[in-house]
């Protein structure tokens, strides 16, 4: 009986602490308005990393393979279209689309751990470059006008 109580207590504590801590960290920081904090990390890429060119740039399979990898590993946070979700910023903004491929590769390799973006070094280098190819292929998202013109016809 004592073993059962100990097991249940440990389970409850395990779930409580990890969920509470995880949710606390993921809370308001991941709202869209804080994307600037994540984008700022791209600028921290060292010049040597930024200067790296994508070795798979001309590989016709890089984009479809990168799309598969994106759906597997990235879309949960950045959405299926790459336009950003509740946990990750848009990858179709100028901060990412205008960034050097090497800088995006550097972010994938190092993550933005304090902002919840994991380190993706467990993917081999060619797969990270395939992801870079796909992210770059997404292009800039169409901008939304701040005050859209009214569509209601007036007499």
């Amino acid at each position, binding site marked *: 009986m004592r*073993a*059962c109580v*100990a097991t249940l207590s440990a389970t409850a504590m395990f779930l409580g602490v990890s969920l509470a801590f995880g949710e606390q*960290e993921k809370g308001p920081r991941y709202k869209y308005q804080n994307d600037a904090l994540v984008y700022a990390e791209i600028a921290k890429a060292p010049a040597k990393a930024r200067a790296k060119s994508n070795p798979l740039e001309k590989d016709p399979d890089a984009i479809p393979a990168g799309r598969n990898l994106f759906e*597997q590993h990235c879309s949960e946070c950045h959405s299926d279209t790459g336009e950003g979700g509740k946990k990750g910023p848009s990858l179709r903004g100028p901060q990412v689309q205008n960034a050097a491929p090497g800088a995006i590769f550097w972010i994938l390799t190092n993550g933005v751990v304090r902002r919840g973006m994991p380190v993706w070094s467990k993917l081999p280098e060619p*797969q990270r470059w395939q992801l870079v190819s796909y992210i770059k292929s997404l292009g800039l998202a169409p901008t939304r006008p701040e005050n859209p013109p009214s569509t209601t016809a007036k007499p």
Partner: protein
Amino acid sequence: MTSFPRFGVLGRFLFFLLPFGFPSAARAQENPYIVAYDHNLEEPGHLEIEYFSTFGTQRGGNDFHAFWAEFEYGATAWWTTEFYLDGQTTFHDSTVFTGVRWENRIRPLQREHLINPVLYVEYEHKSSADKILKEVEGHDVESDFLAPNAEARKEHSNEMELKLILSSTLKGWNFTENTLAAKNLSNAPWEFGYALGTSRPLALKASAQRCSFCRQNFIAGAEMYGGLGDRHSFGLHNTSHYLAPVLAWNLPSDWTLRLSAGFGLNDQSHRFLLRWGVSREITGFGSMVAHLFGGPR
């Protein structure tokens, strides 16, 4: 003194079914190690449910089948926490529940380096009937496993285990080195152990089509693990050591299968340990649970 309950065929069946029945899963890219750890942590908010099995030969006694379930949760991008339930069946003897473990892995450095350290802290409450061999520590030897379950399950220990995981990724290869220090909390000396591992995917580029048998889905390697004695008698002698080729198959259907055939390297080791495991990663588990309690999804 408490004793862990025995459980029968139904219990084992339910234990095995734990990872099934979750609707949302992610395609994993898991390493093949069963004993060693690398520096890759669980993605934040993901829950990985794993079942592992070890068949071990036993000289002078009955062979055994030990099994455990792991619930691995990515609390943050730098902290992974895991809860274990362990059990074993000794042939011609019985099946017993052998204990629980709670482990935490913390990544102190925020960026990727040539060598990436991870700190590991684990608490174990286990009986002497525990045979999962998730690590070898101190002077653990094959003959420790000879006691019948009825006797071994009555003895329990509370143990703290610390590990320093040093792991590198180079040209698709992973190299990892784990050093272990364990302390039985009832006034026993510190015991030490090690695990080394190396692995590489069979192909480094992903293919343009999704496929089950593509080479990049397979990661092969080897791990070696053993004891290093205790505070009074440190070294490789009077303990057991194993070498095991390992293979992981990351299926596009959200599952990872692992297989390892371990061979004892000296007379104090089990001659053969056949291990296999199956795991499934559940994405967005943290958000799902938070939503159940009224939080934002």
